[in-house]
């Protein structure tokens, strides 16, 4: 009973963190603040993973999202002058009704999401590392190799776009 209560409270705190920080990312004017709140959202999502018993994924989440991706984005913030509307996209002149459409759709989808029921009787014990490793290196060996090509392609692409002229 007491354990259940702890779980519920943890979930509530993490959920509030995710939603609050997420809204902050969208609404705050200062880009550095948005970036840091984004990192905070990632951390809370990692907390959710732990709550779900997926410790390995939680560790990856912290390493890759909170670590690598946040740092990359902060570099991006640092190197680009902060001008809004530098490159206007087609839809962004209509934001009031964009927000009006997204809010009810989001609430609707969330309500549909609530209808999913647990089918596992208990969280599988012993973490998720074994199942993860065997799946990736046995069944998903091909996409794993393709992913390595993807990283190479991204690396070459990033270099060719930003290197100085020789």
């Amino acid at each position, binding site marked *: 009973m007491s354990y259940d209560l702890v779980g519920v409270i943890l979930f509530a705190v993490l959920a509030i963190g995710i939603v609050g920080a997420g809204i902050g990312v969208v609404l705050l004017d200062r880009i550095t603040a948005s970036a840091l709140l984004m990192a905070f959202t990632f951390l809370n999502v990692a907390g959710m993973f732990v709550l779900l018993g997926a410790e390995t994924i939680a560790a990856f989440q912290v390493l890759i999202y909170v670590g690598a991706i946040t740092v990359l984005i902060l570099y991006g913030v640092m190197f680009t002058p902060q001008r809004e509307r530098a490159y206007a*996209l*087609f839809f962004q002149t209509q934001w009031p009704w964009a927000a009006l459409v997204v809010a009810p759709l989001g609430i609707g989808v969330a309500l549909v999401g609530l209808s999913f029921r647990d089918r596992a009787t208990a969280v599988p014990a012993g973490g998720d590392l074994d199942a993860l490793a065997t799946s990736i290196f046995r069944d*998903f060996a091909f*996409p794993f190799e*393709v992913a390595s*090509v993807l990283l190479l*392609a991204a690396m070459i*692409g990033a270099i060719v776009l930003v290197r100085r002229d020789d």
Partner: protein
Amino acid sequence: MNELLQTISPLFPELVVAVTASAVIVVDASLPRERASAALPVLTVVGLLVALVGGPAVSAQGTYFGGYVRVDEFAVFFRTVFLLLAIFATMVAPAYLDRKRVPAAEYYATVLFSTIGAMTIALSTDLITLFVGLELMTIPVYVLAGMQRHDRFSNEAALKYFLLGAFSSALLVYGFAWLFGLSGSTRYADIARTVASTGMSDAATIVALGLVTAGLGFKAAAVPFHQWTPDAYEGAPTPATAFMSVAPKAAAFAAILRVLVSGMGPLAADWATVFALLAAVTMSVGNVVALVQTNTKRMLAYSSIAHTGYVLAAVAATGAGAPAGAAVLFYVFAYGLMNLGAFACLLYLDIEGTRGATLDELDGFARREPLGALAFAVFLVSLTGIPPTIGFVAKFFVIQPVLDAGFTWLAVVLAFNAVLAAFYYLRVVVHMYMYEPEGALPPVVSPRLLSFSLALSAAAVVVLGILPDSLYAWALAAAGPILP
């Protein structure tokens, strides 16, 4: 050693292309610039040809990696399409890349990487492989769009394409997550089974299918998910535009057939109405807006949206069985050939930046560059759908299943659109052949490799328009695994 060879032999074309891509980078780094710029296109084309010819010989059909990779007729067909498009996109590019100082080695390598991703989509039997393949197909194309990096139109094209592409990928993954939640599996076969048993009444199924349709709609540039297309196509370096207007679209349709048609089983018939509506809106909007364009590159961008609509009409008709699937495959093949060719014809004019020729700048083009104008005219006539070209045959194959599936209204919309499209396509031909070249026109350049590849593909457009039977029979066989 023998065992290893046996494991990887089904992936022969993908491996060859990957090795070629690495070789291109290494050769570029180790040769002096002049020799590299001559050697790289040859190396790229040879690698692609080895993959094209050796593929069917080495990679036997069957399922591999515990059933997670499937080489069937469908995969073989799409592999051929992607490899041919990559060869074509390589052969038309060298002179332009030289002229505009676009880094050539990276251009070829990026095209090759994108091709591997596209082929991965065709081989996939589950959502994870599909997703990784789709990303390997698109991410290099963002880079291609921005490769003329001192041109701000190219920058803007890359930025728009990237932001909308990343957005659509996120929609797609979220849809995939829900499909996984519903079926407990990422494999198409299992998903089809689950989705068929829950049916259309289940709200979660509809949310998932809606997200996946929107995500793939962005990739295929269907209305209302098309807004990135004109700016991205217009601003990208022209050879890159030629490639990105065909290969990602073909890959998107491979994904649509794998996920939304074969992955949905019996439910596909209900979802067909959504596709029919998308198809009608897409072809109409594309054609109407193309009608008022004066820049040929932008006009071709809108016309490519219209062609997405025609293919979607065939997708909507999959209730009619294998002929509809064959129509999709045949149209994708025909569209790839003629649209890549049409964009490539713009490469004859040396214009500043990434801009395409305006209609006035094409005045008297037939007199200035007879062969190029003839090829351009053939591609435009084919895009219009006038016999004896492959474009006519492709439209003809689409209409029949659309009628069989009971979408008579869609067939009418399609026919009306084909007439509408004739106005703007043939206007270009009129400007090329009927007008005198007057005033200051951009200089004409005629690289031999460009003329050679355009002559080859224009001939193919006509020959396959007269003798489409063997290609159609192959498309029919390739549609078998998708629509039994």
